[in-house]
């Protein structure tokens, strides 16, 4: 899931200026993060209205990153969108830009910070699990990812700074290498860590900016 955090209301207000505003949420990640679900959008509407800002309407897109779907869903809000000078999007950085493609005169502004791709550990607790490197290495580490979960992305063993199994950079988090070690040790496969892992091909992450799945797009 793409984990987001809502910007402070003061920051949002600054961008909204005098309004009027139209609010957009997302039914997927932002709903699960409680940053852009229906509940948060309605709360935001009330907060803005208390500050005398007109809210022309709102919608929770399903999801905000789906361009063609957005076109269809936003049609029914055509007039409300036209009246708005600011469209505030409570979705991930992707969702915001997908909405931006469909906006006309209004400014599209973001109501969230996009943080990471992570898991819902408990309600309202999220942890980073992936940095989309394009070259998944978890099979080498018992299904765990040091690329995203080690602050130094170390592929050949721990840095040596962990204490009591906790990361030296953030003591609230487990050292991923400690977890890898325990997992492989319990399976009797510690020897697999002795292989020297070669440098990663980072272009898979940084230069893969578009994919077209020809096989599937040609299906009826």
């Amino acid at each position, binding site marked *: 899931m793409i984990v987001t955090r809502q910007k402070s209301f003061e920051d949002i207000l600054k961008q909204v200026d005098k309004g009027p505003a139209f609010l957009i949420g997302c039914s997927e990640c932002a709903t699960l993060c409680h940053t852009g679900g229906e509940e948060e959008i309605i709360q935001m509407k009330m907060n803005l209205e208390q500050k005398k800002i007109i809210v022309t309407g709102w919608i929770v897109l399903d999801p905000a990153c789906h361009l063609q779907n957005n076109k269809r869903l936003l049609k029914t809000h055509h007039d409300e969108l036209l009246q708005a000078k600011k469209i505030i999007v409570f979705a991930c950085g992707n969702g915001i830009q997908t909405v931006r493609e469909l906006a006309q005169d209004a400014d599209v502004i973001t109501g969230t910070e996009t943080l990471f791709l992570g898991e819902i550990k408990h309600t309202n607790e999220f942890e980073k699990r992936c940095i989309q490197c394009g070259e998944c290495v978890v099979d080498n580490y018992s299904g765990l990812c040091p690329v995203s979960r080690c602050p130094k992305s170390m592929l050949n*063993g*721990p840095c040596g700074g962990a204490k009591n199994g906790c990361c030296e950079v953030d003591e609230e988090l487990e050292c991923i290498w400690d977890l890898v070690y325990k997992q492989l040790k319990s399976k009797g496969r510690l020897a697999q860590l002795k292989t020297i892992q070669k440098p990663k091909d980072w272009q898979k992450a940084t230069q893969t900016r578009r994919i077209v799945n020809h096989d599937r797009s040609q299906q009826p």
Partner: protein
Amino acid sequence: MTARSNLEQILNDGRFAVTAEIGPPKGADPQKIQNKAILLRGYADAFNVTDNQTAVVRMSSFAGCCLLHQMNMEPILQMTCRDKNRIALQSEILGASALDIRNVLCLTGDHQSFGNHPCAKGVYDIDSIQLIQIIKQMRDDGLFQNGEVIPAGKPIMFIGAAANPYSEPYELTIDRLEKKILAGADFIQTQSVFNVDHFLGWMDDVRSRGLDKKTHILAGVTPLKSKKMTERMKYHVPGVDVPDEIEQRMNNASDEKKEGYDIALDTMKQLKVVKGVHGVHITALFWEEITPVLVKESGLHPR
């Protein structure tokens, strides 16, 4: 084979080596590092110049090494993977070799969040083991990391790495040392030893795997300057093991500096006779002037 550096020559001859750390200044004044160098000249075989240690901006290790070299002192270039990608790191190796800097210590680097620019983006394109392997491949095979031939002169380099006997999980400390040796580490400088007993046990494990025969291990020594420094090393520096006993000795001492010095001298004397230890690496943090005394009194002078 002829040695690539004075340090390599000493280690190849089976002589006990001494290296010492010189921290570059937080500024552009060359005098600062030259003064430290004058103080330490003749008291070590080679001098590590740190690379923005603890992620605090200082004069570069490369520049510091050049300044030492101008004074006919042998530098050890420290390189971290925190601030440079594989392009910059390989380029620096070529440059260092061209300027007769012939020792390198490969480190992943302290995380930027501990330093004075915590908002900086860490690079970590590669890790220390990959860096060792890359430099070895450049030196021995004349190939860049991408497999291309180096057309205009292979670098000459004596390759070093760090090892921390005190890190967790313990079992991996030996595995990681072995990986560094396999990658191409000719010498190893260890984390500073305060807990001698633990270090002796670690060396037993190192010897049982025959690793002391495949590389040269230099044991780290750091004289404690004060109670405050002891506390910082014990509780705030990741990966350091200061036993309670040493903390108590420092706390009860009437002369903190003398006590810290005595502990370091005692540690050096113990490390000198450990089988498989081929030298000591002295890191006298903000206390460089103590290094010559330590070297002299532990019977390692003249160099």
